[in-house]
C-alpha cells in the first residue's frame, strides 16, 4: 500500500479511537476542553529556562491516554509527525543564547540549549494533550463544545470543515499519486516537473469535491449548527474533573515538585 493511503487510514483511526466507551470518553466534551485549556495555559506560562517543573505535567496526558485506552505508540508517532515545527522554532536558541547557565562538573550547558529543551518539552505536553483530547472526545464533539462555550459559529464551522477537508484532500491526493505511480513505471513520474500540475489539479479537484459535500450537507438541513448524538450534561463528576485537575496544575505551577523531592531526599541523606 502506498504511504499516503496508510496515512489516510491513520486519520480515520483518531475518529475510531474517539468512539470507545471508557469513563473518560463519556465525560462532557466541555469539561475535557476546559481542563485541557487550563493545562495548556499553565504549561505555556512557565519561564523560558524551566525544565524540571514541567516534568510533572506529563501526568495529565498520560493518565487520560491510559484511562481512555489510547495506544501510546500511535500518539508518539503523531507528535513526532508535527515535531519539525517545534524544532524550527527552537533550533536557533543554542546559536544565539550562548551564556553558560548550568555547570555539571566539566560539562557546561549554554542557556540556549536549556531553553531549546524547554520548548521541546512544552511542545510535547501541549500537542500531546490536544491529541489526547481529540482522541477521547471526537473532533465534532470538540467543535460543538467550543460552540457551546461561546466561540463564534464562523470559527467553529471553519475548524470543522478544515478537519473534513483533510479527509477529502488525502483521499483525492492518494488517488492521484496512485494513478501517477502506476504509469510512471518506477522512474519517479517524470521528475519534479509533474508536481506543479499535480498540486494545481489537486486543489481544483478537492474544491469541486468539497463543494459537492457541502451541497450534500445542505440537502440534509445543515445550517452551521453542530449537533451530535451524545447528550450534553455537566454532572458533579465533570465539575470534579475540571476543578481537580486545574487545582493540580496550579499547584504544580507554583511548587516545583522535582525540586522539592530532590531537596527532601538530600535532606534525608544528610
Amino acid at each position, binding site marked *: 500500500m502506498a504511504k499516503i493511503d496508510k496515512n489516510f487510514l491513520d486519520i480515520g483511526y483518531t*475518529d475510531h479511537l474517539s468512539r470507545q466507551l471508557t469513563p473518560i470518553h463519556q465525560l462532557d466534551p466541555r469539561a475535557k476542553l476546559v481542563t485541557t485549556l487550563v493545562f495548556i495555559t499553565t504549561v505555556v506560562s512557565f519561564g523560558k529556562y524551566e525544565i524540571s517543573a514541567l516534568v510533572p505535567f506529563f501526568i495529565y496526558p498520560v493518565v487520560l491516554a491510559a484511562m481512555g485506552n489510547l495506544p501510546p505508540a500511535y500518539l508518539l508517532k503523531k507528535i513526532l509527525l508535527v515535531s519539525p515545527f517545534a524544532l524550527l522554532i527552537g533550533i536557533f536558541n543554542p546559536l544565539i543564547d550562548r551564556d553558560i547557565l548550568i555547570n555539571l562538573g566539566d560539562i557546561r550547558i549554554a542557556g540556549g540549549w536549556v531553553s531549546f529543551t524547554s520548548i521541546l518539552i512544552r511542545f510535547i505536553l501541549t500537542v500531546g494533550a490536544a491529541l489526547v483530547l481529540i482522541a477521547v472526545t471526537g473532533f465534532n464533539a470538540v467543535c460543538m463544545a467550543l460552540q457551546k462555550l461561546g466561540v463564534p459559529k464562523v470559527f467553529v464551522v471553519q475548524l470543522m470543515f478544515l478537519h473534513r477537508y483533510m479527509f477529502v484532500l488525502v483521499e483525492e491526493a492518494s488517488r492521484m499519486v496512485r494513478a501517477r505511480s502506476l504509469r510512471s513505471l518506477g522512474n519517479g513520474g517524470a521528475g519534479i516537473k509533474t508536481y506543479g500540475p499535480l498540486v494545481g489539479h489537486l486543489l481544483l479537484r478537492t474544491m469541486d469535491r468539497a463543494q459537492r459535500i457541502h*451541497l450534500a450537507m445542505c440537502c440534509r438541513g445543515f445550517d452551521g449548527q453542530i449537533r451530535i448524538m451524545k447528550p450534553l450534561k455537566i454532572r458533579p463528576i465533570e465539575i470534579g474533573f475540571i476543578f481537580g485537575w486545574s487545582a493540580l496544575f496550579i499547584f504544580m505551577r507554583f511548587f516545583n515538585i522535582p525540586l522539592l523531592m530532590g531537596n527532601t531526599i538530600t535532606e534525608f541523606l544528610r
Partner: protein
Amino acid sequence: MSHHIIEAQDLHYSYPDGTHVIKGVSFRITHGESVAIVGANGAGKSTLLLHLNGYLRPTQGTLRIGDYPLTKRNLKSVRRTVGMVFQEPDDQLFMPTVFDDVAFGPLNLGLPLTEVEERVINALETVGMPHLRDKPPYKLSGGEKRSAAIAAVLSMSPDILVMDEPTSDLDPRARRRLIELLKTFEHTKIIATHDLDMAVDICERTIVIYEGRITADGSTLELLQDETLLERSGLEKPLGMQSCPVCESNEKKVIKDGLHSTGRRR
C-alpha cells in the same frame, strides 16, 4: 397530498461560464408517481436534478414544489420534502460512522435524540444494513455505500425521492437488490439514469431529455420501444427489450445449416 407535486414551467439554466444546459423544460409530476429521467451523458439530467432541491436557481422559468414556487425563503422546507441521493455516494457520506451519517439529517431537523435514534435504526433496517452502523463509510463496499446514502436520505422521511444514477457502479446482484428496494418505496420518485432496464422495472413514466430539451414524456414501455426516438436522443433500446445476440446467431446458424443440409440432400 398536494405537497408531493413538482411542476416545472419553461425551465432554463446556464452555468456561470455561459454553457446553456437546460433549454426550456416543462413537466408536472404528481403524488406517488415514479418517473425516470433518461438521456445520454451531458444531456442535462444532473443539472435538472440540482434544481429540484433548490441548489441551482433557474435562470428563466419557474419551479413549484408543492403549492409554492421555490424561493430562498422556503428552501429549508423544500429540502425536507425532497430527499436527494447523489450519483457519488462518497460525496454524501462525510461523518465518521454510518450511524452518525444517517443521523445527520434528523439531528439537523432538531428532533429529540430518542426519535433520531429510532429513525436511524429504521432507515438502516429498510436498506438492510443495521449490522454496519458503527463502520466508517469509507470502509464500505460500493453497494453498501449506496445503501447507506439512501438510508441517510430516508431517515429524514422525505415525500419525494430524487436519485441520480442509483445503479451506477453496482454489481448485478446489488443492482437487483436496489431495484427491489426502490420498488417497495411509496414516495414520489424521480430517477435520472441511463440504466433503461431499471427504468422499465421501476418507473411507469419516462421523460427523455436530449441536449437540454424534453424529446418525449410518456409511458416508459411505449417510449423505450420507440427506436427512432431513442436513436434521436442518443440512447439505445433497453437490453431487456433487445433480442438476445447469442440466441439470435444460433437461430441463424440453425437456419443456415438447415438450408445447407437440404441443399446437400438435393
